[in-house]
């Protein structure tokens, strides 16, 4: 006999919705066709709440909450769009653009980049913060793929897909804060690492940080939709 389902009812943007206990606000919102912008979230991977794009307001709390890790609660009243949230989301995007060298026009992901499309959907036409222009490496040591740190936003999708789905855990993040850097194994060239060459990290990377060497210019669409499907097939076995 299965346990009774624990249903929570809540309000998102004035709409009465319900979800199972343990579901996140983001999940329930999307099930109800309420869109919340995300960058580090990807269907099929664990949540880290790193990018803060999915911040929402919850009634009677002065704090903002990342909806990807916020569990639904009975009677919760959530707002996903407001001037305050727009201001924060735009500022978060500006911080991403100012932190490293995102030169969209010459990026391998131009036209297929989630950072670029997020900027557009949030109405960002310029970056008010001064650009840092750090000097960063490009690791082209791998036979098939390239890592360009200039485009990395440290979303850790690649770290998670490699550890959780491929089971190899080649990628990780070195250092902290502004010095954080994606590394293969114990900071080795990607081509000399324990990489299994599966390419999942390239497909889930939202920007041009990880790309396929055979792709040139902006001809690099990515297909992260394979993940929920792969998980579903594995669970079915």
């Amino acid at each position, binding site marked *: 006999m299965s346990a009774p389902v624990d249903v929570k009812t809540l309000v998102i943007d004035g709409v009465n919705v319900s979800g199972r206990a343990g579901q996140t606000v983001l999940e329930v919102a999307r099930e109800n066709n309420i869109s919340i912008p995300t960058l580090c979230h990807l269907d099929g991977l664990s949540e880290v709440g790193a990018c803060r794009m999915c911040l929402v307001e919850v009634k009677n709390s002065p704090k903002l909450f990342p909806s990807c890790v916020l569990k639904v609660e009975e009677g919760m009243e959530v707002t996903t769009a407001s001037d305050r949230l727009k201001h924060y989301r735009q500022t978060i995007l500006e911080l991403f653009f100012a932190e490293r*060298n995102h030169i*969209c026009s010459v990026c391998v992901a131009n036209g297929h980049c989630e950072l670029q499309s997020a900027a*557009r959907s949030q109405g960002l*036409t*310029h970056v008010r913060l001064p*650009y840092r222009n750090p*000097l960063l490496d490009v690791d082209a040591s791998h036979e098939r793929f390239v890592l360009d740190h200039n485009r990395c936003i440290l979303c850790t999708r690649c770290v998670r897909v490699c550890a959780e789905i491929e089971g190899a855990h080649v990628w990780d993040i070195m250092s902290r804060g502004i010095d954080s850097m994606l590394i293969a194994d114990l900071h080795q060239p990607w081509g000399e690492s324990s990489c299994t060459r599966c390419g999942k990290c390239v497909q889930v990377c939202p920007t041009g940080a990880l790309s396929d060497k055979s792709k040139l210019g902006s001809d690099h669409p990515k297909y992260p939709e394979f993940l929920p499907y792969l998980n579903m097939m594995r669970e079915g076995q």
Partner: protein
Amino acid sequence: MSETVSKIKLATVWLDGCSGCHMSFLDMDERLLELSAQFDLVYSPLVDFKVYPEAVDVALVEGAISSVEDERKIQAIRKHTKFLIAMGDCAVTGNVPSMRNPFGPEAVLERAYRQNVTAQAQIPCVLVPALLEKVRPVHEFVKVDMYLPGCPPSADTFYTVLSDLFAERTPDVASLTRFGA
């Protein structure tokens, strides 16, 4: 409308960019004729005026600020312009010219004028303006009234934005173009 109605004084400026934005502007083709009923082109690399006029209504500024000359020009342009538009990614973000920023101008000049040269290797220093330490977008120097990202912004974007502005409407730029478009 009578013939005496004064036209909008439009200027276009080319700083550190590739002129691609100007090419895209020209790509409006016959629609330029339609728009030109409403403006006079008072300064532009496309025409022959040497001096930036005293009073310009709308200026489209292409390119980033990369040299002391760009910096001097943009200050003068701002002073004599009512509505300044940062046109294209170089003006808006620094774009390709700003790719030298992580290395600095000395390294770039060394590479271009000494390392890759076989005859008379020397860094130009006469009659050319000194490079700034960093290439920066226009709004880091002067107030910008509108941002038109894109590399380049499409002819359709130019047409919609200029038609809206001339009709005193505010165009929804984010719906028309984006960084790298």
